[in-house]
């Protein structure tokens, strides 16, 4: 393309002059530049989207599997009454079962080792036994979820050991080494520091007394003058004050003088000085727990099946038991209400405004307002719902009915605008044809224009619904982020939660398991949005007519 031949020169036109050639070259360059800008913009957008989705998937995928232990449990008839299985001593049954798998745990550690299993373990066992009363007196193998920290540990999300020192602390120690104050003394790595034995704080004794700890710290601070952080003092071992005290006791005359004292460094720094990377046990776990966990792992009782509970359980305080069923149900109810309100009202409004309304100031005002409503931040609709639906009409809080009503306020403008666009897109020739054979305005509308506009209307509606599905702020304002531990009692007038507000609540939770569950919930939400959009596209393809 770029080396296109110049055409035959017309009479009087200099198509072959240098100027003309330069013009052509510039034109092609401008074309290429424009295309390059477009490609760059698209690549940036696709790249960012890819990063976003990848990060959500990477964070969220561990939540789609759940570490479970196949724990053989002997349902002791002595502890569970066959007549009244609901009130058995299931907690002790679970503890016994665990003790059989991991024998020899000291009494005082049993409670903490029991925390390897989910706190709901005894209730899961109870529900199972109540349902299968023939299990009493037998040994059953029940897959029990591990509690969150051990679930994360098994999936490799959190480590068993942590670095004892931060990189800042490592750098401080390097600085001390470079200054030559780190030395071996009495077989221990020590800091050789100048200490001014301040007579104001130290009494020579005997026995010597005073703020030796403060002296030790001050001397260390003198070497790191720009550090304003107390964690540097972790460098000194616990016997640092004693080292000064010993020197003063040995020679009381040093009070008021500056002397060199060897302070041994604490264990992590000693390891660091030997060239090792100092580690400490993850504070989430105790050593007894880790030992027990290793035993369980070695016995091959752990597996990670697909986490159906994520979809079929309701919410829970324990991440390993928390699921989205309540949120999905709540969102479904709210969207149902939203659809039933906004679809008929939206279409009626659009048809009236587009086909029947006279063009005057008043209808212009309505039109401008509808277009503006589409741009109103959703939180404002939430406030409106709070003030009007809850405050004025006194409807109950947190219920899908009100949630759906608030969402329909947001969806209405979208539906009205897209419906009007779809009605406008029906060619006038179709209307004329129908009018020409004597159809009334109403017949033209119902027989021809609406059916032809329907694909566009449905697309707009589904997109509006998808928007509503992802809307968080208005639902938060009317309190539709209730804690719903069971799906059974959900209804239009019962407190509920929804997918986006559930994500919001989980994102706020401190447990490590909720991090991946939040991402997983986002993926589920994105999945629903994707399905809705695919349906919208499919409907449009299916009903699209050409004219």
């Amino acid at each position, binding site marked *: 393309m770029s080396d296109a031949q110049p055409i035959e020169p017309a009479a009087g036109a200099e198509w072959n002059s240098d100027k003309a050639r330069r013009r052509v070259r510039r034109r092609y360059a401008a074309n290429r530049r424009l295309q390059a800008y477009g490609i760059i913009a698209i690549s940036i957008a696709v790249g960012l989207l890819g990063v976003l989705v990848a990060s959500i998937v990477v964070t969220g995928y561990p939540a789609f599997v759940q570490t479970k232990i196949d724990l053989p449990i002997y349902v002791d008839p002595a502890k569970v009454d066959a007549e009244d299985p609901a009130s058995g001593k299931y907690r002790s049954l679970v503890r016994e079962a665990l003790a059989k798998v991991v024998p020899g745990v000291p009494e005082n550690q049993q409670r903490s080792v029991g925390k390897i299993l989910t706190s709901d373990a005894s209730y899961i066992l109870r529900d199972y036994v109540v349902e299968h009363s023939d299990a009493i007196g037998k040994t059953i193998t029940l897959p029990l979820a591990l509690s969150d920290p051990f679930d994360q540990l098994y999936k490799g999300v959190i480590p068993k050991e942590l670095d004892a020192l931060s990189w800042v602390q490592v750098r401080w120690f390097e600085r001390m080494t470079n200054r030559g104050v780190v030395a071996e003394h009495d077989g221990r790595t020590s800091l050789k520091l100048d200490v001014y034995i301040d007579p104001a704080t130290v009494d020579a004794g005997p026995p010597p007394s005073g703020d030796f700890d403060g002296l030790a710290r001050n001397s260390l601070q003198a070497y790191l003058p720009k550090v304003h952080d107390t964690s540097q003092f972790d460098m000194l071992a616990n016997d640092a004050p004693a080292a000064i005290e010993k020197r003063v006791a040995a020679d009381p005359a040093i009070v008021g003088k500056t002397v060199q004292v060897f302070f041994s460094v604490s264990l992590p720094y000693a390891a660091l000085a030997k060239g090792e990377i100092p580690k400490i046990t993850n504070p989430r776990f105790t050593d007894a727990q880790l030992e027990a966990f290793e035993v369980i792992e070695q016995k091959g009782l752990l597996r990670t099946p697909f986490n159906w509970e994520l979809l079929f359980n309701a919410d829970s305080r324990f991440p390993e038991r928390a699921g989205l069923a309540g949120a999905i149900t709540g969102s479904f109810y709210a969207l149902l209400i939203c659809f039933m309100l906004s679809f008929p009202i939206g279409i009626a409004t659009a048809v009236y405004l587009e086909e029947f309304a006279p063009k005057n100031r008043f209808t212009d005002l309505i039109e401008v307002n509808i277009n503006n409503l589409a741009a109103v931040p959703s939180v404002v609709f939430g406030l409106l719902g709070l003030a009007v639906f809850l405050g004025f009409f006194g409807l109950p809080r947190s219920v899908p009915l009100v949630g759906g009503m608030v969402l329909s306020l947001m969806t209405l403008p979208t539906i009205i605008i897209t419906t009007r666009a779809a009605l406008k897109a029906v060619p006038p*020739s*179709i209307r004329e*044809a*129908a009018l020409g*054979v*004597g*159809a009334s305005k109403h*017949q033209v509308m119902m027989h021809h224009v609406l059916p032809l506009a329907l694909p566009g209307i449905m697309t707009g509606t589904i997109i509006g619904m998808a928007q509503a599905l992802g809307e968080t702020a208005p639902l938060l304002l009317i309190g539709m982020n209730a804690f719903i531990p069971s799906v059974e009692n959900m209804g239009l007038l019962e407190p509920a939660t929804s997918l986006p507000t559930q994500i919001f609540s989980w994102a706020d939770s401190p447990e490590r398991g909720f991090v991946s569950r939040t991402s997983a919930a986002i993926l589920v939400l994105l999945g629903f949005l994707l399905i809705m959009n695919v349906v919208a596209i499919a409907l449009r393809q299916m009903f699209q007519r050409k004219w």
Partner: protein
Amino acid sequence: MDAKVEAQPTVRVQAPVVAAKKRDEASAAQHDVKLAAGGVNLWYGEKQALFDVNLEMFDRSVTALIGPSGCGKSTFLRCLDRMNDVIDGCRFEGEIRLDGDDIYAPKVDPVQLRARVGMVFQKPNPFPKSIFENVAYGPRIHGLATSKSDLEEIVINSLTKAGLYEEVKDRLDDSGISLSGGQQQRLCIARAISVNPEVLLMDEPCSALDPIATAKIETLMDELRDSLCIVIVTHSMQQAARVSQRTAFFHLGKLVEVDETSQIFTNPTDVRTQDYVTGRFG
């Protein structure tokens, strides 16, 4: 129609008498007046599009409206079945009498009027439905068919009259849009005549068609003329000469001249008409 009779009894009573008398007197050469426009003025908003148009259109004959673009001929045609009513800011003044009754009288229902006055448009505009449904739509909404077989008969009759039946009889369930341009236009004619109109208005019906399809439609118009009053707007003077008995020349919203077609094309009285038909402008 019945509603209209009740609405305007005085006008309706004498018109058929006059019409019948006229029909008896004059045989083939001169038909009775079907449509009569008197003092028609029309404005689109502030802009006046028609100026005092007076024109008579005869039953069982073709009246051609010719003139340069924007001269108001299509606008005038659309006045004849009140299609201008649906345009915002359109204002009409004057009267148009169909069989002696003013179609702009307040009690006239434009929907019923459009059943009596059919229209065929410039671009073929079949409904995106089956061929059968396209033709059956009019009779259905006007309740012209009492049974399914009735409806089928009407559809077949209309398609036959429009000269399309033989070509589509095997695929009545196909979409009307699957037809060729000329077939689509004949389908639109079939749709228009399916409700037994008394007048057929055609707004440049052949301008989007090739010569073969045009010839078919012109033949069709000749046949339909036996039972209908046809008013056609056309840009092709040859077409006007071929199909019409009377021709009206419009210029700048005014009716310049109306006469027998042969007169207009051979011996026009107005110099503007002469300039136009001889191709000096327009």
